[in-house]
């Protein structure tokens, strides 16, 4: 780890000013990802601006009936918040499925959105990686990729986004709010993460110098009956190999509304809009759920060793939607 300057910001404007346009300065939230990456040499900032003390640690109801979540709210506080648990249970479940109790106490919502991939080539600075070192190549395509992307990847990068929280936020149309020297801005989460293409090192659409200040969730009655299911290679404290955030509203045997987002299958949380289109208006049942999954997964381009993810996601969609339907019928 190289030596660096450290400053604490006390308000949003001050934080933005401290960051300026210096490409070697980073905001430091909980540090659970950035400090790790600094130790491995992936990140080598010259200056850290500590934003943990910013007054962005509240979860509040919006007048429309949604929620506004501050950027420095910890994962633990987010998952414990009664309104999150009541209105968006899948979001609470997603956060609780991530990392460990210790890390959830430290990690912040803003930092979670900006997590870097856990691809073993990205985190090893002695190996090529187009995301870390543009143009150096992607060894995962020919190498170890059993937990890499099946959707939206390119020959340049097949890494997956590691966040669980962001999968649920994506399902519920979250909007990211940020502040820059030129004033505030907002980005729907759907537009927040950039397509991989041939620029895997460019991960988000955040303008340079921007500080994430929070996330808003619009009201979503369908989310009250929602669920997050995560599959991983041990029962806890592991990144997903496939996950699903799902919400389902069935009336009179017909799907009125549905939300689906996939985790660990793409460079970003993957909103399954094609699947949702198949579901809405369809007769509820395993057949419709499978058809929805197939509609989404038709675009899958698995690598030699991750084809199982297509089956996994299909099975997850059928299983979780069936459970939600059963729950509704009770």
């Amino acid at each position, binding site marked *: 780890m190289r030596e660096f300057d450290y400053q604490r910001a006390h308000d949003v404007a001050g934080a933005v000013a401290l960051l300026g346009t210096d490409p070697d300065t980073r905001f430091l939230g909980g540090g659970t990802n950035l400090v790790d990456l600094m130790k491995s040499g992936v990140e080598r900032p010259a200056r850290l601006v500590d934003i943990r003390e910013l007054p962005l640690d509240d979860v509040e109801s919006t007048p429309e009936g949604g929620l506004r979540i501050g950027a420095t709210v910890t994962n633990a506080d987010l998952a414990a918040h009664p309104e999150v648990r009541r209105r968006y249970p899948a979001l609470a479940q997603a956060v609780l499925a991530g990392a460990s109790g210790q890390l959830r106490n430290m990690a912040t919502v803003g930092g979670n959105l900006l997590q870097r991939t*856990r691809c073993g080539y990205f*985190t*090893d600075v002695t190996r090529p990686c187009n995301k870390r070192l543009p143009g150096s190549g992607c*060894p995962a395509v020919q190498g170890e990729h059993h937990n890499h992307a099946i959707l939206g990847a390119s020959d340049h990068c097949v890494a997956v986004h590691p966040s669980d929280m962001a999968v649920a936020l994506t399902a519920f149309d979250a909007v990211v709010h940020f502040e820059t020297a030129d004033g505030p801005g907002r980005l729907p989460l759907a537009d927040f993460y950039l397509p991989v293409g041939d620029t895997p090192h460019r991960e988000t659409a955040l303008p340079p110098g921007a500080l994430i200040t929070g996330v808003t969730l619009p009201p979503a009655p369908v989310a009250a009956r929602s669920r997050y299911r995560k599959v991983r*290679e041990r*029962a806890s404290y592991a990144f997903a190999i496939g996950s699903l955030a799902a919400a389902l509203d069935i009336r009179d045997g017909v799907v009125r509304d549905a939300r689906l987002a996939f985790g660990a299958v793409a460079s970003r949380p993957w909103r399954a809009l094609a699947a949702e289109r198949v579901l809405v208006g369809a007769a509820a049942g395993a057949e419709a759920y499978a058809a929805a999954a197939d509609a989404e997964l038709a675009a899958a381009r698995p690598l030699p060793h991750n084809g*199982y993810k297509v*089956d996994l996601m299909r099975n997850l969609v*059928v*299983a979780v939607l069936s459970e939600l339907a059963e729950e509704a019928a009770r």
Partner: protein
Amino acid sequence: MTAATTETAAHAPVVGTGHTRIEGRDKVTGAARYAAEVPFAGLAHGWLVLSTVARGRIRALDTDRVLAMPGVLAVLDHRNALRLTTDYTGLLGTRPDPTCAVFQHDRVPHLGWPVALVVAETSEQAREAAEALVVHYEQEPHDIELTAEHPGAYPVDGHMPAVTGKGDLEAGLAASAVVVDAEYTTPEEHHNPMEPHAATARWDGGRLEVIDSNQGVTWVVGELANLFSLDPAAVRVRSEHVGGGFGSKGVRAHQVAAVMAATLLQRPVRVVLTRRQMFSLAGYRSPTTQRVRLGAGPDGRLVALEHRSISLTSTVHEFVEPSAAVARVMYDADAHHTANRVVRLDVPTPTWMRAPGEAPGSFALEAALDELAEKCGIDPVELRLRNEPERGPVSGLPFAGRNLAACFREGARRFGWADRDRRPRQRRDGRWLLGTGTAAASFPSGAAPSTATATAHPDGTFTVRISAADIGTGARTALGLVAADALQVPPDRIRVRIGDSDFGPAMIAGGSMGTRSWSWAVKAAAGELRERLALGADIPPEGVTVRSDTTEAIGSLAPAERHSFGAQFAEVAVDPATGEVRVRRMLGIFAAGRIVNPLTARNQFRGGMIWGISMALHEEAVRDRASGGPVGADLAGYHVATHADVPHIEADWIDDTDPEDPVGIKGIGEIGIVGAAAAVANAVWHATGVRHRSLPIRPDRVLSAPGPAGAPDA
């Protein structure tokens, strides 16, 4: 008080009764200091630099720039390092792995080979400087891939013969009513003790002192004295608390580099391996490819047995994972053939890891037995009972106690085995398919020469000193109980001092032999001390000390098949939609000699069984073919079982006191893992109807497997 004070009348034996650990309070309060935690004035920090190519030669190291960095004191590499001696045979009868003889030449035989040590005032400075050191290599093509048909495979004896054989195998198989012929694979597995390898070296009054984390101070002293051409009496190694070892904590690059730096700088130097470095420098269990062929009559009695295993080793040192040897103990057949072969590849040297040979070998053999039971239509417990040998199948020697059948009977009773439907895929609980499986376990029982002292003090207390290592086994506490019974005093009157090479030579914590070997020496010293005190002499202020040496007694044991045995039972749940496998309960019944401290022994048996769960479902180190290095070399990439993976586990034992051991001990450190992975894998078959012959049974493998539990429409 000066008179002899052993109490002959009132002493109730304490061996066999549960006691909390002597050092327990220190461990729960954080007061117990491990190797990297003993403070020294003027301490400098060393950081190893490892090669980033898998084969080649160091062309140049840009050390000048690094030496100019803040706090940097020295850079050691092959151009300036002390010359070492590697032409010797160590305590365990093996020659040194050249990987620990650091910086002696410019060859690079694997990725992660130590090429330099950067020493600085602080650990932050050392790390940054080590990472800034640019090393230029002349790279050569490498080969890291173990295959069953590798042309370079050759038989290696290791600590046992590579090949054994009797009878006509092909004829036996041809004459068998039922034949199983299957290939099993296990992956590269890493010990990953929670405490990383760490050593602090310093010269103190003409003696080299190393505060270290290891499994045997005698062993490490011997290796360091040989490597540095020192008189062993001029070397002292201390390891009071050791944060796990499992076979990985012998002599490694970091101790040797620390000694080199301390010698050069004449100040204390500490070198700690990072978790990532441990994946290259701490040893590991070789992957194995095993073929098992079994031929049996319709009643399941074995007619022919073949177990062949291939493992890998580095190009600089020969190490064999003797997986096929487990068959030499477990089952007999008229035609009986076993072979362990090795391939030399451009990889780090593997080493002993908890139940070397038996752990992967029992997975293959006991899974094959389960397949045989299925094919014969015989209950898997009954199949094993029918194949209990009278004598060692290969040695022909008698068994010094073989209580395997009793373990199976007790285990089957407690597990509720009798109610089991033998057909697979019969039980379901919601989204989960349920199944149960069993497997047999064995591990050699042995003792090695050790010395100990027992001292009586005038105040009525005693001190026992032995160069034992407590790597979590509870050895310190067990030895206190053994001494208490030998002296016939309450254990709280005995101080147990271990982990200091100045206490004299002793066996390592390894091979399930530590507690047995040390107890023998402690009982001998304490017993003799008691006899001497019984004569009624006064105790002088410096105390009365008796020294024991068990070399002769152990040497006079008659040859026999000496082993611990066990029966493993597991129940698993498999979600066929996601491929997740969860162990729901597990039971192990062991015949493993006299249990000194039931509280800690139960914990240790369970720990071994949890290793079996971890091996069956989680552990796999992945090596990148292109670079030759590990991918995801950390505890997020290499999964070991965590709390949520581990259900309630019962471990218990039957009476199995070893008549030839003074305390009746056999050894319990390794047998818990043996057969455990097979029991889980057999239960997965019972749940799903699909055989998984490659570990670990990851969700992707369950989903990709052909057959009823997979997804045929993939």
